């Protein structure tokens, strides 16, 4: 070898040391394979540390994710919110309708229609082939929450629509064809409003199943809580609308709804952030962690404001806004938490490995070949 070279082995030792320091993924400088830094088993974003999950050991094919992360974009998270909002506000509307609180009714019905229209837009917009959205109506599959949701939405949507349109009745002329409408719309609206209200809880909670019925570890394992969280979040957002729209005199039920919703939501999200062990980690770390923590804070603030602001229209409105924002944060938080859990193979391998070992009767897991038929 050329004389200007260090002794055999030196460079290799340096190479290994450098590698140990830098972490090995350094092909970025050649061939343009920039490594996506940051998603790297041991690193944990802000807020994670307090959890103190010990670094877990697992193997994976070149460390690549085993699962395909959801291809759903922001609009599905937005749909989770808008769907819940539609459901919550239609309940609010029905309540207002039955207990003679026109402001609540009106606000509820209008919001409900707006929200359900937005939902439909989000759903179609997220499709790879939007022009084929109607293929959703080919089948009715009990095994597919999305199919079920489609049918629920197709029941709820028109009802919410009619109910909202009915609110225009007072503005119609006394006579003529439209006059007929002026007479007929209110009863139709009431009927539709009640129909919407009946389907509303289904609309609000099926989305929990929609996320849970996947291989995404942190979604699936959270299946007992997700519907509760989403129900609560829906109620809270509905209440938020009430607080924003209704005069303090009518806002009583909204305040109580806010409390109830917040209770369900907080209980649920507390559970998923603690009950799932390793799979709680994605909810406590990174974007999801930030969003969920923000959601909690906003909910608390919203409820407090709602209770404190009995007399103040302004405070009520603020707390209503807070509740709506809280609902948004919660939905996006849950969404991102799941996506993160699908992207890191450890959330796939470790729990399954532990499950397999439990089944195998606590045999110590020996990894790698040469360790016998089962061990490797």
């Amino acid at each position, binding site marked *: 070898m050329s004389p200007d070279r260090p002794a055999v082995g030196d460079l290799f030792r340096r190479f290994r040391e450098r590698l140990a320091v830098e972490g090995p993924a350094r092909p970025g400088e050649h061939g343009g*394979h920039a490594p996506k830094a940051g998603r790297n*088993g041991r690193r944990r974003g802000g807020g994670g540390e307090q959890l103190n999950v010990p670094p877990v050991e697992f193997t994976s094919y070149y460390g690549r*994710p*085993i699962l395909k992360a959801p291809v759903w974009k922001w609009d599905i998270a937005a749909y989770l919110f808008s769907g819940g909002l539609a459901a919550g506000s239609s309940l609010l509307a029905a*309540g207002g309708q039955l207990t003679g609180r026109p402001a609540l009714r009106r606000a509820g019905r209008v919001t409900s229609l707006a929200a359900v229209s937005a939902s439909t837009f989000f759903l179609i917009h997220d499709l790879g082939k939007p022009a084929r959205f109607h293929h959703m109506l080919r089948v009715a599959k009990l095994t597919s929450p999305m199919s079920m949701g489609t049918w629920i939405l197709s029941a709820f949507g028109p009802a919410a629509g009619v109910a909202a349109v009915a609110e225009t009745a007072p503005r119609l002329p006394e006579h003529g064809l439209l006059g007929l409408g002026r007479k007929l719309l209110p009863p139709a609206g009431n009927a539709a409003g009640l129909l919407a209200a009946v389907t509303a809880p289904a609309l609000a909670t099926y989305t929990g199943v929609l996320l849970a019925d996947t291989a995404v570890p942190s979604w699936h394992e959270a299946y007992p809580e997700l519907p509760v969280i989403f129900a609560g979040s829906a109620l809270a957002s509905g209440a938020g609308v009430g607080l924003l729209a209704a005069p303090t005199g009518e806002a009583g039920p909204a305040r109580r*709804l806010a409390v109830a919703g917040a209770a369900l939501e907080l209980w649920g999200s507390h559970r998923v952030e603690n009950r799932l062990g390793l799979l709680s980690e994605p909810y406590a770390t990174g974007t999801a962690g930030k969003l969920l923590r923000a959601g909690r804070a906003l909910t608390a603030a919203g409820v407090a404001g709602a209770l404190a602001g009995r007399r103040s229209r302004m405070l009520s409105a603020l707390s209503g806004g807070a509740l709506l924002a809280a609902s948004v944060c919660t939905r996006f938080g849950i969404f991102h938490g799941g996506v993160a859990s699908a992207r890191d193979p450890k959330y796939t391998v470790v729990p399954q490995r532990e499950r397999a070992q439990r089944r195998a009767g606590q045999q110590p897991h020996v*990894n790698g070949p040469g360790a*016998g038929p089962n061990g490797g």
Partner: protein
Amino acid sequence: MPDANSLYGPLDPAPDAGWVEAGPRMGFFTDTSVCIGCKACEVACKEWNGVPDSGFDLLGMSYDNTGALTANSWRHVAFIEQPRPAGHRTPPFADNPTGPPVSAESAASAAGTVTDTGTVPGVPPGSPEAAARMAAGPEFLGMPGAQPPGRATGAETRSDFRWLMMSDVCKHCTHAACLDVCPTGSLFRTEFGTVVVQEDICNGCGYCISACPYGVIDQRKGDGRAWKCTLCYDRLGAGKTPACAQACPTESIQFGPLDELRERAAERVATLHDRGVPEARLYGHDPTDGVGGDGAFFLLLDEPEVYGLPPDPVVTTRDLPKMWKRAGVAALAMAAAAVAAFVGGSS
């Protein structure tokens, strides 16, 4: 009427899916102990099914430049280099002047490479540590102490080495989550018991992608639809062997009635154990496993996750009834809360 095991447990899926006079269930048995990693399966599949290219980047994952199963790669040959003993074989580098192995570092670097496969999510980069452990040698530098028990021997030189190769494919599960959650009926169970995406129906909702416990199905950019192995539905209809299995030079990919394949596989494992390959084990053959057994199952020589397979997959729809129940409870609670809010208290 649906079987009691419609969602979970042993089941012959075709009759359950309404195929009244269905033939025997057809499937793949992929014996990785005879795979030579030639990738004929990848090419034959693409040629028959007109699957687009999936990127022209060097990934450095040994000889794997495909990376993973994607919408544009329905067969994927995995390559794993390990300084481990290979069954009864003579250690390849015994008495050569070798130092410590480098497989772990190389794998760790390769974990960072990316290529545009023309699909989403495609082949994202991964965790270097997990990659390193996959290929961990007796002495594993770079991330000290990151080895699972049983790996570390602290040897200063390498003499053992093995090169694992495995052609991965859609598992055509007995209980296929992708199929169950598909809202359009695009994914359906064929008369052969296989799981197929109908390209004229799929509207790209993406639900199947999150539902697959193996990370097989994937979305093609621009096109927007989900794509995966069809087990050559059209060829089966014509009584032909799927393209990959017909091409496979060493019969690593075997096609046939699933029952026969399972028997053959069991014999093969027994033979290998006799011949001093204790690490041979089957994967996805068991009708009582979390997905009711795979229509495409494997003979592996290491832990499933080393090949990028989940160690203990369970079909998500197993828990669907419970999920609906929880949703119902939540819905009732919601309704109750609403009623309470209005009737309880005044003002």
